[in-house]
């Protein structure tokens, strides 16, 4: 397998490589803008208007408006950028992680307290190990 194929073979993982970086540029720069309190306020006061300042795709915009955390990652978002959006909404990394893995924050927290998601079965799609 090529390097790219090996990366793609890891389940549930979206490498922030050149493809996603280019695809997600404006989405991530929107997230990044939320490090300023005045921008957080402006976004919360008028989401649509604020988003007009960032030439993202309609799908990315929809992901933002719908809080589709996994969808935003698949469209080129990077979790460290996205965490600024999370913070704007009062959502932690753990909340976002729960949402992306399809469980509630409480279920996710319980999984972590029990030792986290097991590596076994999570290494490779093709080898199912």
């Amino acid at each position, binding site marked *: 397998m090529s*390097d790219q194929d*090996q*990366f793609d073979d*890891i*389940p*549930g*993982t*979206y*490498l*922030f*490589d*050149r493809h996603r*970086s280019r695809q997600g*540029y404006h989405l*991530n*720069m929107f*997230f*990044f803008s*939320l*490090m*300023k*309190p005045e921008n*957080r306020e402006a976004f919360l006061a008028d989401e649509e208007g604020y988003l007009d300042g960032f030439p993202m795709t309609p799908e990315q915009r929809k992901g933002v408006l719908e809080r589709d955390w*996994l969808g935003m*990652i698949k469209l080129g978002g*990077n*979790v*460290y*950028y*996205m*965490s*600024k*959006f*999370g*913070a*704007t909404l009062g959502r*932690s*990394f*753990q909340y*976002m*992680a*729960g949402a*992306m*893995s*399809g469980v509630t924050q409480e279920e*996710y927290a319980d*999984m*972590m*307290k029990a*030792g*986290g*998601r*097991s*590596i076994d079965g*999570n*290494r*490779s799609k093709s080898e199912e190990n």
Partner: protein
Amino acid sequence: MARIVGGLATSHVPAVGAAIDLGKTQTDHWKPLFDGYVPAQEWLARVDPDVIVLVYNDHATAFSLEIIPTFGIGVAENFPPADEGWGPRPVPTVDGHAELAWHLSESLILDEFDITMINEMPVDHGLTVPLSLTCGKDSRCEAPEQWPHRVVPISVNVVQYPPPTGKRCYDLGRAIRKAVEAYHEDLDIVVYGTGGMSHQLHGERAGLINSKWDTAFLDDLTRDPERLKSIPFLEYVRETGAEGIELVMWLIMRGALGDDVSEIYRHYHIPASNTASGLIVLEPAA
């Protein structure tokens, strides 16, 4: 002449910073993690370095996609805590050591490390959480008005693929050691490597923990750094989670300590929010 007197590596989980800032370190949930840091705090207080060279990664805070330095060094007089979306952490501004940082820059660039020199660098949880965790319980730290140690921050890109290789990181550590030993002033220096251990923050695989892999990494930091140097990017991502690649920064610390080291202390705790939290203290062999 300056010298490296010790090394410390620790996870730098943002939720751990929040637990400190919100006064939750003694709750049932958090106490076991924080108790594990006490011996490292005592060690740091005993060693009491003049400067901490703190290797960390910026998490899309000081740097965005506009500009992504592979290695950066903070040469400014000080570095303010960053606003990562929640407002800045209620901790002091970090005092730098500009003269040492410039010396390191000159030495590293002459030594063929293409480091970026940085004067404006708000520092995020990657840098401030390790300071909080190791600052200890003395009066300077309960509600610190000033951090007890000056810091030279060294940033490493691990957010945008490609990050530097483990070997390159280790070699940067060696070059830091050489530069420190050529510094004119009599300074005791501790090097921090931060980030890791296993964690994945995104995607359906979020929450991945591989404690067997982490434990072997901790073991071999003392015993077999040659093995660690050759771990490829793919293995970090597959075995420790996408964000586990931060562990390459521990290799910079390890490289800075010289060939032989003794392990002074370690602590490993699951979970810290999404993460396996690791801590290790090393000293150069006498």
